[in-house]
């Protein structure tokens, strides 16, 4: 399993109700269903991913998250997850609000735009950073709202969101001892567990 999903897996209580926004091919939900007996749903728009979920027995709903989550009731899930998609939302702040409305807790992961490599790329080449991990150019990237860990934590302060847990990892989702020294410079991906 992808390393970030491994970490999220540890944060999910057995038997809980989970909604995975942008669930991909359903790997996390399939695992949570089998190992933790969660009752889970994924939202997805990619056709191949939808088919893969259906074949795996993962409940998947064809729905664009940017169209809103208004049809889902308040506090109807224990945990709402969004991995590596926040930066591609039209209004990440509104999505986080919605996630916290329909879920008791939320898990959000996103790439850190203040990582030293991104800073260096911009500082020395004077161009928008392109990497193996984020291979798009500025005009075709789905990632329209990049932020840094500091930015996200500021949003949490502004919106009265409590950060329950934070893990910062490198682009292979591994923990490195040195990331803890200066996460906003050295960490590439953050995994936050938040509530309100």
């Amino acid at each position, binding site marked *: 399993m992808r390393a970030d999903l491994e970490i999220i897996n540890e944060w999910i209580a057995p038997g809980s109700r989970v909604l995975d926004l942008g669930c991909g091919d359903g790997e996390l939900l399939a695992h949570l269903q089998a190992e933790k007996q969660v*009752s889970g749903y994924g939202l997805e728009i990619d056709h191949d991913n939808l088919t893969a979920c*259906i*074949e795996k*027995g993962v*409940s998947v*709903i064809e729905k664009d998250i940017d169209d809103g989550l208004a*049809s*889902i*009731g308040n506090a*109807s899930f224990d945990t709402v997850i969004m991995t590596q998609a926040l930066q591609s939302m039209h209004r990440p702040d509104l999505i986080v609000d919605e996630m916290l409305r329909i879920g008791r807790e939320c898990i959000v992961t996103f790439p850190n735009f203040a990582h030293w490599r991104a800073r260096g790329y911009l500082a020395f080449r004077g161009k928008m950073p392109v990497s193996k991990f984020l291979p798009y150019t500025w005009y075709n990237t789905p990632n329209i709202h990049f932020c840094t860990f500091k930015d996200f934590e500021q949003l949490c302060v502004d919106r009265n969101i409590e950060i329950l847990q934070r893990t910062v990892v490198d682009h292979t989702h591994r923990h490195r001892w040195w990331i803890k020294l200066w996460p906003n410079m050295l960490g590439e991906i953050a995994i936050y567990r938040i509530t309100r």
Partner: protein
Amino acid sequence: MPAVIPDDSVGLVSPERIHFEQPLELSCGRRLDTWDLIIETYGTLNADASNAVLICHALSGHHHVAGYHSMDERKPGWWDAAIGPGKPIDTNRFFVVGVNNLGGCHGSTGPNTLNPATGKPYGPDFPIMTVQDWVHSQARLADHLGIRQWAAVVGGSLGGMQALQWSISYPERLRHCAVIASAAKLSAQNIAFNEVARQAISKDPEFHDGHYYERNTVPRTGLMLARMVGHITYLSDDGMRDKFGRELKDGKLSFDFNPQFEVESYLQYQGERFSSSFDANTYLLMTKALDYFDPAGEQGHDLAAALAPAQCDFLVVSFTTDWRFSPERSRELVDGLIAAGKPVSYAEIDAPQGHDAFLIPIPRYMEVFRSYMNRIAAALPQPEGGASHAR
């Protein structure tokens, strides 16, 4: 008419009549003391009877779902696109049952069959059937066939309503429920279209309050109008534009009131063909069953509460240009299922064909359907001699 039967067809098939002596109590308070269902089956029921799939039909459908009755038959069964060897509902793995519902006009007990009490056709005295009544009759059929639990109950449109009702009425008797181009209830607009169809039939002078059999006549004009209105609502604006545009039959305007646009003659042809093959009383009855269906209505309009008894997994599919059973209605159903905590997958298929899309083998639709059925098949006990069909 097929010159040769295609490899992925169930081939030549024949219907079977099943007679029931146990009375069937109906929602309207009346009952049928004895009744017949006409069915077709494809594939083989496995040893523990766990591979059976029930196909529920829509307004004008019937038991002839796949294959050919003879080499002279013009077209195969109405859902041949989805049922057969190697097709989404793979008859190498599933035992498929098609049934003509009570009140229908293709052989099951209905307005055009003889009422044993009078020796005359039931006509308008045939009781108004509901989706629940059909599901109860289908449960008796399952008993008769030795099927304790369906692997899946599948239906499109009015058929999807029956599949959904199965999950509520007999939760322990199905493992999967596929609701395609359907809704948990009709909208006012939808009921309105049905009422236009009913008025067209009942105001036809040949209708004779439904007693037209004795007079050896048929309210052909009414049926034709009903079908024409229905047909318009089954297609989409885009679909009609693509198919007919403003094409003229003779290439020029004739300055009279005869049909001259292609779309006019198409509708007339469809209407006329339908009026010579379908029963007017059955049409009235089927549209009423559609209008009445509203499982949430009995639960204070709380769809999640109505769905609470269900124990199966659900597949819901809608089509983008379907305005008779729009994606919005399917999303309501999906929201209700999620609120009730039921496993559900939902696909919204991009298709220009309107409501009719559910009968058409659109590649992505078939892929979704196939994936879901594959998953059901994978959970079946593997036949002796290895799993040759496993993917």
